């Protein structure tokens, strides 16, 4: 289980200080998916980056209860792959860093798991489609077998048909590999498809947390959450 307590992240000092995440607290059950929704600038992506150490935490604590570092899948599948590295290099790099010996079978296995044809193994990112690139990014995040996967709008840069494929892949991988997800999105349909619990963020604060059922029924108390639901219709 993931436990986040009063987490605050800010940038700048003095008058220029900007609080991106303000005392966020939430729990995520093991092998479940937790959604963070809100408009751009609400601090949801910053919160995600703080949980994996890409952004320093100012105050508060979080406990991921995992020996392995969480891995992340990014929004733009082109920007998250090194333009001069083949699929093989991208997937081999984490194994090299951690000195894993059985690299060949692991690369084959993970490519099969995320639905990438072996013929794509020595292609560069510019020779892949958007969906294929995102599958490579997912494979790279999973090749070290993490317990927690952080998803930063992982489908928003993809075509609608490809979005559905990737979302189904996330759903399958979660069961197969006993993963826990924290996903950031502004697409309420994507969140309600994948997530078991959802937190709504506004101006760095979590204004409301909802179960999947209440989220699907649009049964919110907070006026901002209701305005999000209305805007989405």
């Amino acid at each position, binding site marked *: 289980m993931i436990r986040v307590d009063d987490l605050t992240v800010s940038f700048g000092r003095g008058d220029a200080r900007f609080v991106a995440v303000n005392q966020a607290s939430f729990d995520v059950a093991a092998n479940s998916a937790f959604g963070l929704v809100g408009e751009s600038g609400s601090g949801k992506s910053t919160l995600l980056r703080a949980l994996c150490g890409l952004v320093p935490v100012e105050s508060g604590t979080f406990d991921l209860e995992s020996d392995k570092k969480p891995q992340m899948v990014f929004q733009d599948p082109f920007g998250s*792959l090194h333009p001069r590295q083949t699929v093989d290099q991208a997937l081999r790099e984490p194994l090299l860093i951690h000195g894993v010996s059985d690299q060949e079978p692991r690369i084959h296995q993970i490519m099969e798991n995320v639905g990438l044809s072996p013929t794509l193994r020595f292609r560069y990112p510019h020779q892949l489609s958007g969906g294929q690139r995102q599958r490579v990014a997912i494979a790279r995040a999973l090749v070290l077998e993490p317990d927690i996967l952080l998803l930063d709008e992982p489908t928003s840069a993809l075509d609608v048909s490809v979005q559905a494929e990737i979302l189904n892949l996330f759903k399958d991988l979660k069961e197969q590999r006993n993963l826990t997800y924290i996903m950031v999105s502004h697409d309420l349909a994507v969140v309600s498809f994948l997530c078991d619990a959802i937190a709504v963020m506004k101006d760095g604060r979590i204004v409301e947390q909802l179960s999947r059922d209440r989220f699907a029924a649009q049964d919110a108390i907070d006026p901002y959450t209701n305005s999000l639901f209305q805007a989405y219709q």
Partner: protein
Amino acid sequence: MTEPTATFREWLSAADPASRAQAQAQEIYRAALALAANPLTLIGGLIVLALLLTALFAPVLTIYAPNDQDLANRLAPSSSLHLLGTDELGRDIFSRIVHGARLTLYIVIVVALTAAPAGLAIGATAGYLGGVTETILMRITDIFLAFPKLILALAFVAALGAGLNSAILAIALTAWPPIARIARAEALVIRQSDFIAAVRLMGASDARIIFRHVVPLCVPSVIVRITLDMAGIILIAAGLGFLGLGAQPPAPEWGAMVSKGREFLTDQWWIATYPGIAIFIVSMGFNLLGDGLRDVLDPREATR
């Protein structure tokens, strides 16, 4: 250049490369095709190739040794015996220019192999790490950059003594700062990208990120810059030679040849002119090649 066989060309354009080597060969092949598509680049490339071949086969291409004197036949104009005439000691100018290509190429290669990696490492480290490291490294770079190239080279040559190797050292010491600045600018952009964040999450060390992930992306603009700088480097080397501070007599260095020929410029114009033309052609060749490389390699220009 040999025409690739059909099967080799298929291997180079196959949609699904079967190995990393094939994938890399395909990238180079695509870049080479794009380079050859521009006629000016092709000319520049051919000039540089000609310089390479001339330097490599200098003894085969010439009848006379570059330092063979024939005082009875000094200051002779172009003839069937001496294609470009002879100088004040009766040495064959064609032979000296051809052998001088070796000196020019030697200077260019040594400078490129020392200044480019040094500038790349310093700039990429400064740009990626930022903070105090960046401040220290870039202020050192600024100090070197503040000196006019030729003046700094003159100071080094004065301190180390005249000679080809001190000229090369002086040129290399003035050639790396612009490279470092370019590499830093690239690294500043690259460090913000998601693929660097991803490799940090994997637990990669700073050194690994800099040299395996940041540096390869800085290399194209560094190659472009050093190629364009080659013209200036050749001119500085020739300038030092002209002032008598570079290669020492009797070495057939082009700048020194121009300097000697200056005394006879009014009556025996060919002594100074032909090495001058050689300097001009080679400098232009590097410039044309550099422009073409920029069109192909610069990530801001590239469409792929």
